[in-house]
């Protein structure tokens, strides 16, 4: 499909032809506009002037320079790049949902409110927790909301706790969120298998600890087997246990996080619940929590009153709003459509097949790309280039670029930080055995080609629209607009 020779990489502004137009607005009322001259802009914005066809051709061309889930296997660890069902898109585009103004009267929003109410109930059940907010716009935004809840919770109890404990294997968003909230981050060194050492943990928690943020399964792709002891230690210290739910795809329908003793967790709809990533958003997030945290949730939430659904503005204990209006409702509609397509048992099948897929890839690649962990993984595996590749000076980045030449998106690389030269592969449950076999063959081909001719792999990719890009120049002399 994509070939460098057909790449026309002019910017839209470079195709602009003064006087050309794509769309008009001919509302006769515009003649009534009476904005005084002193409030008007002095010069028009420098935007391209193009016909509709120019615009369509320009952006269609751009689209073809992308890898995407629909066109390529996209095994980005931690990102859960599963198939995004078309039905979700159709549902979200229904005028009844899409045209609803966020300040619409509750009586006009009964359908959306009912959807949010039902979605909330189903998500609480899947998580084994009691209450939820769907207001956060993404995962990191959910973390932020979760820590606000913790803060409000402890303030309400009259306790001052200013430390967030984060293992060194955590997603970078955890410490960033803690810092943004004015908490001190306490880092704990994980055991070599990425698990938390309960004794080590006990040394770091106490009356100052507000929250332990834990990713389950952890970022090495394995389950926190001592979760019960961890939860006990955290609760004995009077602190809260937060679960980073980025890896919920490994547990959905099979394990209820609430049973593990966690107090709250976040969900990423663009990961576990199949809403598209859109090139980096929009996503949507949620915080699901136990009863004792519920009064602090952002407002509004939805409740049912006498057969009607109403926005519930809670009481003074609420942390307020983390986002204007209700949240990314358009994304929630997609997630709800996805949920309708799954029975209780079928949710469990997501976890089962995502775990089988990750272990299958790890098993087939173990000779050339050894697994970091010596045990079975959950929904993702963390590999590294083998000693023969490292001896030739080949690095994870080279493997990533070599894969692009073979028609596969690269896995997540250099994460988690505790693994040197990490290659983190999350196939997801929607990829078939055939696709995984082709991917494994590509990984082996990258290995063989690299061993035979290391320089050629270091120069990869060779077949993409562009070769390796000069990131140093981009950062030293930023060129950020036309």
């Amino acid at each position, binding site marked *: 499909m994509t070939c460098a020779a057909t790449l026309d990489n002019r910017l839209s502004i470079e195709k602009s032809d003064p006087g050309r137009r794509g769309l008009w607005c001919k509302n006769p009322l515009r003649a009534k506009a009476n904005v005084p001259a002193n409030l008007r802009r002095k010069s028009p914005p420098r935007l391209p002037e193009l016909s509709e066809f120019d615009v369509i051709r320009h952006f269609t061309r751009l689209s073809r320079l992308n890898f995407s889930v629909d066109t390529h296997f996209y095994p980005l660890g931690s990102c859960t790049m599963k198939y995004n069902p078309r039905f979700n898109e159709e549902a979200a585009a229904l005028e009844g949902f899409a045209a609803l103004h966020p300040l619409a009267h509750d009586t006009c929003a009964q359908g959306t409110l009912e959807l949010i109410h039902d979605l909330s109930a189903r998500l609480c059940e899947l998580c084994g927790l009691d209450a939820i907010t769907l207001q956060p716009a993404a995962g990191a935004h959910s973390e932020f909301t979760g820590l606000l809840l913790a803060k409000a919770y402890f303030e309400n109890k009259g306790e001052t706790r200013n430390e967030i404990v984060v293992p060194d294997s955590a997603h970078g968003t955890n410490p960033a969120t803690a810092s943004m909230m004015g908490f001190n981050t306490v880092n704990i060194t994980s055991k070599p298998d990425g698990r938390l050492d309960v004794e080590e943990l006990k040394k770091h928690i106490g009356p100052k600890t507000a929250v332990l943020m834990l990713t389950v399964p952890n970022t090495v792709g394995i389950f926190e087997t001592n979760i019960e002891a961890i939860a006990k230690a955290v609760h004995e210290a009077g602190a809260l246990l937060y679960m980073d739910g980025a890896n919920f795809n490994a547990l959905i329908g099979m394990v209820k996080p609430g049973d593990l003793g966690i107090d709250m967790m976040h969900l990423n709809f663009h990961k576990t619940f199949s809403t598209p990533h859109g090139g980096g958003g929009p996503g949507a997030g949620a915080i699901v929590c136990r009863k004792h945290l519920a009064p602090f949730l952002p407002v509004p939430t939805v409740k049912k009153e006498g057969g009607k659904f109403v926005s519930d503005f809670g009481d003074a204990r609420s942390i307020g709003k983390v986002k204007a209006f209700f949240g990314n409702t358009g994304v929630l509609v997609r997630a709800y459509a996805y949920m309708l397509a799954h029975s209780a048992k079928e949710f469990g099948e997501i976890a089962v097949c995502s775990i089988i897929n990750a272990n299958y890839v790890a098993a087939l690649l173990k000779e050339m790309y050894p697994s970091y962990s010596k045990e079975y993984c959950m929904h993702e595996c963390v590999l590294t280039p083998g000693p023969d590749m490292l001896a030739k000076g080949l690095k994870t980045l080279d493997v990533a670029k070599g894969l692009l030449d073979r028609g596969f998106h690269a896995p997540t690389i250099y994460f988690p930080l505790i693994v040197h030269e990490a290659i983190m592969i999350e196939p997801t449950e929607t990829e078939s055995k055939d696709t995984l076999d082709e991917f494994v063959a590509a990984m082996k081909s990258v290995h063989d080609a690299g061993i035979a001719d290391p320089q050629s792999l270091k120069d990869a990719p060779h077949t993409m629209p562009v070769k390796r890009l000069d*990131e*140093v120049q981009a*950062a*030293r002399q930023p060129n950020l607009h036309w």
Partner: protein
Amino acid sequence: MPKPEEARYTKTHEWIHLGAEASVGISDHAQHEMGDVVFVELPKVGQKLEKEKPCAVVESVKSAFDIYSPVSGEVTAINDAVTGEPALLNQSPLDNGWLFKMKPSNPAEGETLMNWAAYQDFVKQAAH
């Protein structure tokens, strides 16, 4: 500029040429570990620095590194050349790539820092 052998070094890889007006920069080992430097943020002249507290930032493409003041004191000059041309830190970390000059408030602090030989050992050890 004096020779690298004459400077003192910190565990966070800054060097300092001690004196009434001491100059500070990052070691060759540090610039090598960072890779291509793309941006440098320096303290202000007159700013009071505390030993081992962050006082400047050096960014590479992928990472940002805090620079810690080797000793306490007041900034007397900054090297505008490196903010304009961050590559100087890679090309000449010990010379044209100096970051700032300062007037140490407690000259004794400098004497506790590693000398050239000790720093060489320190870097070697850290590699293992």
